[in-house]
């Protein structure tokens, strides 16, 4: 695989898996959890690194996923103790992140972790970090990691699609029907943690947070059906990563940043021109109605 293609495939995979889960997040009004998780996993990464003593991906992935879940658990407990939601999120993730930074500085000799790299990642290095199986080079590690995470979320959400759908739209009814709402919640959070962690090792936290929200928000403006929304979100995510890569080449800028900007551009287009909810579209419809009523009244 050529370098450019590898980067594009990685970006597209990250965008697809994040866009897919992001739909459920924004429907459940938990969009900021992506941001929270992506910061809160830092201590998990450091601890896993200290225990395993290697920069292998698997222990780090596990440690990070554990702290992602821990973060959502803390947030949920604070909320159930009557702390308002925004405060619960802020307090939890900033505290965990601060602990992570302190751990990094305490073990700075053992931990050869570059904070910038953990948080901002560098998708441009993806092609060089390859995985080998039985001595054969089987391609970039990032693609395998993110691809596995994506398949996992597709599988789990596919199996419990009906449950996820009801819980997203009407948790009270779901509870009344006997669906284990909390279990589904933690299942979703687990998937988000795994996806976040698998992705941002290669592409950085910021692209993950962006891809969790922006494409799904775009899709939310374009359709009223969950299935369509999922498809549009995945599509918009993939398009943003392709377009973003092109932007990065043209302007010689950060690839992850450009992909985010591209996703933002698509959102802006949907915000203005969506056939159902676009600002400009609605203005046009209102103007047409106004002329129509004016004609009627004449």
């Amino acid at each position: 695989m050529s370098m450019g293609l590898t980067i594009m495939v990685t970006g597209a995979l990250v965008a697809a898996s994040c866009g897919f889960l992001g739909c459920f997040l924004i429907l459940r009004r938990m969009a900021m959890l992506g941001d929270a998780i992506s910061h809160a996993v830092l201590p998990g990464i450091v601890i896993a690194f200290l225990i395993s003593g290697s920069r292998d991906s698997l222990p780090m992935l596990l440690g990070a996923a554990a702290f992602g879940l821990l973060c959502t658990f803390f947030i949920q407990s604070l909320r159930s103790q009557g702390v308002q939601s925004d405060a619960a999120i802020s307090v939890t993730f900033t505290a965990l992140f601060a602990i992570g930074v302190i751990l990094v500085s305490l073990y700075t000799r053992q931990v050869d972790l570059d904070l910038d790299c953990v948080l901002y990642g560098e998708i441009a290095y993806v092609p060089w970090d390859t995985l080998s199986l039985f001595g054969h080079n089987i391609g970039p590690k990032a693609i395998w990691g993110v691809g596995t995470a994506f398949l996992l979320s597709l599988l789990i959400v596919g199996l419990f699609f009906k449950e996820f759908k009801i819980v997203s739209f009407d948790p009270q009814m779901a509870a009344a029907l006997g669906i284990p709402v909390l279990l589904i919640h933690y299942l979703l959070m687990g998937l988000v943690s795994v996806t976040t962690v698998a992705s941002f090792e290669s592409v950085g936290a910021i692209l993950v947070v962006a891809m969790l929200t922006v494409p799904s928000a775009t899709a939310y403006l374009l359709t009223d059906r969950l299935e369509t929304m999922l498809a549009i979100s995945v599509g918009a995510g993939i398009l943003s990563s392709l377009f973003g890569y092109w932007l990065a080449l043209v302007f010689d800028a950060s690839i992850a940043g450009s992909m985010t900007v591209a996703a933002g551009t698509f959102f802006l287009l949907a915000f203005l021109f969506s056939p159902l909810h676009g600002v400009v579209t609605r203005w046009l419809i209102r103007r047409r109605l106004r002329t129509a009523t004016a004609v009627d009244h004449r």
Partner: protein
Amino acid sequence: MNFLSQASHFLSDPNTLWVLSGTVLLGLSSGVIGSFAFLRKRGLMGDVLAHAALPGICLAFMLTGSKNPFFFLIGATVTGILASMAINAITRFSRIKEDTALALVLSVFFGVGIVFLTQIQHTNYGNQSGLDKFLFGQSASLVGDDVWVMGGVAIALLLFSLLFFKEFKLLCFDPGFGRSLGFPVGMLDLVLMLMLVVAVVIGLQAAGVVLMAALIITPAAAARYWTERLDRMLVLSALLGGMSGALGTLFSATTANLPTGPLIVVAATVVFLISLIFSPRRGLLAKAVRLARMRKQAARERVLHSLYENREQGGSGELDTETILQKYPIPRRRLKSALASLMRDGWIQVCKRNGAFRIRGTEEGWIQAYETVLRTRMTEVWMMHENEIGGNLREEGTGSVTGEIPPDLFEPLWNLLVKHGREPKWKPDAGSIPAGEGGITP
């Protein structure tokens, strides 16, 4: 002692003093502004604004070519305001909810910032190092000039919130009412947002993006636990913020290798956790104690009820524990402690017969049982007829029913009880019932 002596040693170092005064000022001002943000449920705005400052800082650098913090402040303020306007526009003109708008604006603005940052790095603007210090923060690098700027801005922010205290209070608790009174609510909201932006931006250099988000929300959330009044909350939040700043700085000054910003956050979080657990009214511990007390009271009442009802229905008034548990299922341990406390009060006697505990009331106990049953039944009947007979048995604030029957309600409630056939039909000893109780004359 070691820590204290080290701390005093470091306090004599002018450099540390600058850093210390900087972080304390920062904690003070963000504590006050954060309280308003917290009450407006805008806690995550601090996070968003801190991220949105990046493109502004980069733009300021690209335009002026200098690393003057003042230009950075202006640039970051401009993009911060743009970000908050974008959030407003998105939530107002589309069906996107606020949390999604926050995450969206945060990531897109930060993405733009990263693009600018790489642009700066690639196009050799000369000395660009230190720009990213704004992201992680470096309190240790604070010098006299920075502290003067921070102090000035912090004092300005405090004065502003003092000046507009009444207006902001209204904005936080009832913006609709404020609008109907003719206050320019939208304008006030903008001013508050502007102050939040400024508070975040001046803190970025010292604390960094994520840590600034914590300084905005954590002291305010902690202060909320201790008081129900806005003015006290502001003072407390400022103090807690300043205290976290001081603690974090001192710890980092006395321990090698520990960064100041994260330590400040950890200190603030510890303060928050302490408030969460130990605050006198809303704290978890106080809640647990209240719950235990209520449970015990309920268990005691259940024992008295079952004794009395047995007597009322012509029984001997002597019950064993199993009968009580059958009638009112409660955990066995709780029943045991309720029985023990009733025995201590001298209201019941317990004796063991045929392997079972038999419980019977004492003279005093029967009177108390009668009172309890009467009160409970009156409360029930009051709740059934609340709208007809008026009066109020509900506790202020909580809305739960206390059970103390005001004397003027006594007679109508007694009559209602008789109507429903629910009046206590057995009187322990007519003579020993306190007669003054609204004059019960059945």
